[in-house]
């Protein structure tokens, strides 16, 4: 017997993502899904961003890692509410993982919630978690061939942060090619070059973030 199904495989995830979205908008909180490969600088950027915005915005963080609480501890030290999710092996956060920790966050008091996804340049882009925007980081140490090798995340992101530009003198990397390929994949992507180590370029990023949130 043949049964017609005609359903999206990730339908269940998308429905929970919509529920999350409703919860976020009712609470008046703007949500960023922050993605990159491992070590590109997600937590470092969060630290810089929190330092720069803490006075003007109430920020909360969800940390997604396969295991461990190091990142949540780094954020906790800055005195903002943070929840750690351990995916126990999964290479991305999904909408349900976010849904179950929402009661642990003071959403009504927050203006901005940043969800740091699991370090991975492929999978997180496929799973909506209820975010307003996806923002990705590529560190220049990863090489200029990454946009064309991992196009999906570049296509899905509203902004691309090119991090670790302080390492430029030590690397044979063509940053203009990263820009050019990212823009070909996604003509409206907003691009920032910065260093979380020296702080160069961080102000422009923070200024843009404030316009998003207002």
């Amino acid at each position, binding site marked *: 017997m043949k*049964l017609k199904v005609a359903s999206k495989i990730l339908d269940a995830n998308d429905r929970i993502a919509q529920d999350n979205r409703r919860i976020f908008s009712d609470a008046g909180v703007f949500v960023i899904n922050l993605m990159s490969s491992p070590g590109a600088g997600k937590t470092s950027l969060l630290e810089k961003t929190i330092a720069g915005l803490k006075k003007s915005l109430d920020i909360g963080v969800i940390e997604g890692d396969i295991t461990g609480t190091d990142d949540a501890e780094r954020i906790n030290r800055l005195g903002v509410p943070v929840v750690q999710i351990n995916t126990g092996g999964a290479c991305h956060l999904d909408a349900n993982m976010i849904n179950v920790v929402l009661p642990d966050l003071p959403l009504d008091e927050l203006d901005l919630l940043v969800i740091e996804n699991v370090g991975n340049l492929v999978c997180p882009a496929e799973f909506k978690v209820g975010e307003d925007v996806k923002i990705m980081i590529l560190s220049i140490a990863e090489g200029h061939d990454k946009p064309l090798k991992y*196009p999906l995340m570049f296509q899905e992101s509203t902004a691309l942060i090119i991090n670790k530009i302080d390492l430029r003198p030590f690397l044979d990397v063509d940053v203009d090619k990263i820009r050019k390929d990212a823009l070909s994949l996604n*003509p409206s992507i907003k691009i920032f070059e910065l260093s979380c180590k020296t702080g160069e370029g961080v102000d422009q990023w923070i200024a843009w973030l404030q316009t998003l949130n207002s």
Partner: protein
Amino acid sequence: MHEVSVADSLLKIAVDECRRSGYARINNVRVSIGKASGVMPEALLFAFDALKADTIASGAALTIEEVPVAGHCSACNSDFTTDESFVLCCPMCGSSSYSIHAGRELDIKDMEVD
């Protein structure tokens, strides 16, 4: 890399649909997977076979139909498809005034049940 999650969702939907329609066993599931979806067919097959073991789909085969990336260019007014997993410009005229309408699918089409 997230093929395990995709296989897991796919099995849940298939098992639920089969039971809801009053059948006891799934023999085949047919899915469309877009070439730009980020899902590799071989890895999806592998994950499906690993996860189906103790379910009513334990004897089921997975048939994967790959969907090429397709779009329309408003500069030269042409419809195109490509074997690549992404498009950087219209393959006909090189313009960037194109839109993509296929290639991101992750859909279950139908299944064979008893």
